[in-house]
């Protein structure tokens, strides 16, 4: 990868930040996004997402009033969109922490310009995911029974259940990524505090910055804390999707009960996560002219990660097929036959197309370097990953052990409403984030531009990037 020097003559690698930038310019450039007047399209975008969010609230109200029966779930298929969406969102919520934590430990400096909003995206995705375990309950008003707390019934959670593991894993994950994100934000909040002219904003940012002043002593503890958090988040992020995969792997159902699940889910999560990062990064990059900071180098690297994890996922599919055939277990075999030939065969083939075929385009640089194609491909992957969860949950359940109890599943309008609704929530949060917080870690950018201690890579790009509009810092 980027920084490992190979004995071979180094091929051209686009820089992680366009030349000509200094700590000052990056500071102004990035903070300007927040400090400048709100662009029109922001209102439009936020308006749309917010109205979708309102529709979500409507669906949820109706759900609580009537019960989960308004969904398509039924006797053999007890889980539908609810858990599919849960796993899907949780998966998406992996990229952020992965980028900031693992790539930090691996000293991948290119992470610097994407980790901030990747983390934000993680938080928001986890928020969306976190709602489903509550929404899917038959009696959601009793969700607190899943937490261990002393009560008059003398009852405690049943710690052998993967759902309880989920409760611990997801809540821990949410907390830790929130802390990680906030800690990363502190110096930048200080920056904004010092930049903004608006009194109210000054107080707001100042409040968040906790009086950060960049003292050498502080920086030292800060760096240590950040490093430790990264060290903790790394096993955590892997554990979370492993635990989610346990929801199925611990079950008996053919198509769930597989040892391959943990690694295959984690890979899938990273896959989906990077897809979502790209889906967000590419438009933002264009909208705010951040090509200097999110360069083709970043896009390429993310594409490569996607390709790699995508291949792992495909390997997972292969492994499942092989086990099914090799185990000679008639239930496994039937399950796989049923995927390929049963009522949901079209979903299955669509899944293979989205997750296994289309991403192979990433072998070609042309696609890796073209924002447009990357955007399209990551869309495919997002859909594919959703279908994967659909296949795992629905096709496994709808025809399991006793043929007498076979059934079919079909999402109702309420299922779709809730699903699309969470996307509305996600986007609303994203819009708020890009409006009020620096979407790129300013202080870390300072470290990698010339003048920064670590300095940038002085490889020159073939064609000059467009000039940077610098805005003078607010100094009274």
């Amino acid at each position, binding site marked *: 990868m980027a920084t490992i020097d190979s004995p071979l003559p180094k091929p051209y690698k686009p820089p992680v930040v366009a030349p000509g930038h200094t700590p000052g310019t990056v500071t102004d450039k990035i903070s300007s996004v927040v400090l400048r007047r709100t662009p029109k399209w922001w209102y439009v975008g936020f308006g749309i997402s917010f109205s979708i969010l309102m529709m979500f609230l409507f669906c949820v109200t109706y759900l609580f009033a009537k019960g989960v029966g308004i969904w398509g779930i039924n006797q053999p298929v007890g889980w539908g969109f609810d858990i599919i969406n849960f796993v899907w969102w949780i998966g998406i919520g992996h990229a952020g922490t992965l980028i900031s934590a693992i790539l930090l430990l691996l000293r991948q400096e290119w992470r610097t310009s994407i980790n901030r909003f990747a983390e934000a995206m993680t938080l928001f995705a986890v928020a969306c995911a976190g709602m489903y375990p509550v929404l899917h309950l038959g009696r959601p008003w009793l969700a607190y029974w899943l937490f261990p707390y002393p009560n008059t019934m003398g009852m405690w959670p049943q*710690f052998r259940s993967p759902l309880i593991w989920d409760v611990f894993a997801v809540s821990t994950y949410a907390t830790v990524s929130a802390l990680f994100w906030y800690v990363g934000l502190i110096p930048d909040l200080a920056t904004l505090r010092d930049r903004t002219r608006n009194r109210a904003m000054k107080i707001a940012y100042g409040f968040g910055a906790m009086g950060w002043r960049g003292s050498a*002593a502080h920086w*030292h503890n800060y760096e240590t804390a950040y490093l430790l958090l990264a060290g903790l988040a790394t096993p955590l992020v892997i554990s979370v999707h492993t635990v989610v995969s346990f929801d199925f792997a611990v079950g008996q159902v053919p198509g769930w009960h597989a040892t391959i699940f943990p690694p295959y889910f984690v890979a899938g999560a990273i896959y989906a996560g990077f897809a979502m990062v790209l889906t967000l990064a590419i438009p933002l990059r264009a909208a705010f002219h951040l090509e200097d900071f999110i360069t083709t180098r970043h896009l390429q690297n993310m594409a490569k990660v996607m390709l790699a994890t995508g291949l792992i996922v495909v390997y997972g599919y292969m492994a499942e097929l092989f086990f099914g055939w090799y185990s000679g277990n008639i239930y496994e075999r039937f399950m796989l036959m049923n995927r390929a030939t049963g009522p949901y065969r079209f979903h299955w083939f669509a899944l293979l197309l989205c997750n296994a075929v289309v991403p192979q385009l990433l072998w070609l640089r042309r696609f890796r370097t073209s924002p447009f194609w990357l955007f399209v491909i990551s869309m495919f992957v997002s859909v594919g990953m959703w279908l994967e969860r659909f296949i795992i949950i629905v096709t496994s359940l709808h025809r399991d052990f006793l043929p007498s109890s076979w059934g079919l599943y079909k999402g109702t309008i309420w299922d779709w409403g809730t699903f699309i609704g969470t996307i509305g929530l996600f986007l609303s949060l994203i819009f708020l984030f890009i409006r009020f917080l620096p979407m790129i870690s300013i202080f870390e950018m300072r470290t990698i531009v010339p003048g920064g201690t670590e300095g940038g890579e002085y490889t020159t790009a073939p064609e000059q990037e467009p000039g940077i509009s610098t805005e003078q810092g607010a100094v009274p």
Partner: protein
Amino acid sequence: MKRPPIYGLMAEFHDSDELIEAAYRVREAGYTRLDAYTPYPIEAVAEATGHHHSKLPLIVLIGGIVGALAGYGLQYWAAVIEYPLNVGGRPLHSWPAFIVPTFEMTILFAALSAVFGMFFLNGLPQPYHPVFNVPRFALASRDRYFLLIDARDPLFDREGTRRFLADLNPTEVNEVEH
């Protein structure tokens, strides 16, 4: 010791090397109460100003251990002692199943102690600080580098120290009110 009239003297530098250079000179001069302010973490500065070890790792380690014990303890107590129930024919103490929550608790506690430990060691939150009284200090979060000598430093002398700092060719030297 009575409160000195000002908080200290602050020199502003244009780039980090000058700052580091200056920091060493100040310490050679025998000053002990000094601090540097930079827009981004710089190891060398920490060295120069003499802040290069942290108790944080120990705090985090302790946090993690507490979390692990709490997690496993809770599960063991609830499942074996408080209300022993036959769940699917599994033994009361199904330790393999208890590993996951234990792990998560470990991480949670460790992470919390890392963050709050950092706050504690840095004395945050501290919204008011004298250095903010220096108008140009706003640039410390952009691309300027500041060196501060605390007035409580035994060698501190309002005029002398000011002159001494001026010799380190800073862009300016400012007095920092309380």
